């Protein structure tokens, strides 16, 4: 019984210490805009999930137009070498903006990208990603003419994280 309790305690202890929370900021280059994001993620062994929230810098600062974006991220770590971690990354993003000041027409963009990311560092980590995949642009209310909705897209991300 004592050995079983020891094993359970040991298991829980190691599990607790293999978990990492990270918060940080990043900039994300996409053909549509350059996004400034805040992000939080949770890593447990080789699996990492993250939530990213940001807005388009060009729309905001050049056009005074709010273009928010939210993304969920899943990383699988396949290389862990000292201070360097390499991940296969899958990210799903949704962004939206109103198509003018005098209209209720709105653009919705859904993106599903896969690619690679790496993190370098210990407590403070630099993270870069290169991702590509499919994105879909939808206009609401439904426009007069139907046009192609699915396209190929890509993004590059550079950011800094604090792990605890």
């Amino acid at each position: 019984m004592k050995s079983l309790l020891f094993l359970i305690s040991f298991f829980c202890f190691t599990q607790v210490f293999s978990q990492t929370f990270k918060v940080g900021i990043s900039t994300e280059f996409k053909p549509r805009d350059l996004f400034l994001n805040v992000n939080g993620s949770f890593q447990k062994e080789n699996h990492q999930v993250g939530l990213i929230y940001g807005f388009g810098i060009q729309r905001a600062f050049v056009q005074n137009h709010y273009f928010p974006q939210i993304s969920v991220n899943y990383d699988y770590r396949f290389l862990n070498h000292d201070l360097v971690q390499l991940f296969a990354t899958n990210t799903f993003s949704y962004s939206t903006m109103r198509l003018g000041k005098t209209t209720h027409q709105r653009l919705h963009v859904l993106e599903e990208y896969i690619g690679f990311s790496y993190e370098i560092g210990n407590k403070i980590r630099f993270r870069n990603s290169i991702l590509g995949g499919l994105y879909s642009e939808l206009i609401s209310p439904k426009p007069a003419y139907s046009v192609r909705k699915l396209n190929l897209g890509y993004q590059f991300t550079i950011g800094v994280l604090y792990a605890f």
Partner: protein
Amino acid sequence: MHFRVIILFFITLIVASCSKEKSSIQTKIIGHAGSGMTQWNGLFVDNSMEGIKYALSLDNCYGVEIDISISADSTLWLFHDSELSDRTNGQGCVRNATDEYLSGLHNKTLHQEKLVKLKDVLLLNSNKHIILDGKNYSQCQQSDIDYGLIKKCFEKLGPLPENVVVNISTMELYAYLKDLGFPLILKIDNISQVTSALDKEEVTGFMFEASKVTKEEIRFLQDKNYKVYLYEVRSIARLKKELKKQPDYILVDDLLNSVIEF
């Protein structure tokens, strides 16, 4: 509890993105060559049906400008250049290609958009502005296209809808097109060239390269009840600058970002 927080977050996201500011700009946006030309991040190739439909679908886009070329069968097709091999899987000049040959061609792009007849654009029955930019010079033949042939092509097409205007780049073409019942706009390099068209009833406006006309010159023409169109407006910074001149229409290349200015 978590579910409510998430819902509240999304509602905040949507509400925050709704700008209350109203636009007071009178200038109208026109999609250059459909939904824009020479845009590295453009969704659609220029003069494609997809690009035109996309532009006409946007509330703040008042219409499209499209480039038309004449085929060997005297049919008007949407094509900017003379040489087919530069942009499509075809060979030779548009002017020497038959309709059957052009119908089988597509652009050398990822989505391989097919070439489009002008007639098919008019069948969209859009009530938005459609500006036809007729090519009256053939690079392949290194000579002007016979103006009589241009007239014949328009006659073959039948009466154009009221929302269509034709952009001509020489007043020599005026004599051939003036009786066909559609408004004409004259593309000019500077304000001094306006005089040749001032007494011509069918000329309803003037098209300028944006950098070659001033606000005062635009106002002068508007006072005489002419519409002023500006082109070569490729960026948002340029659009903001040209909006201060208050022309009637601006042909833009970054269409999606241009419409959100209004």
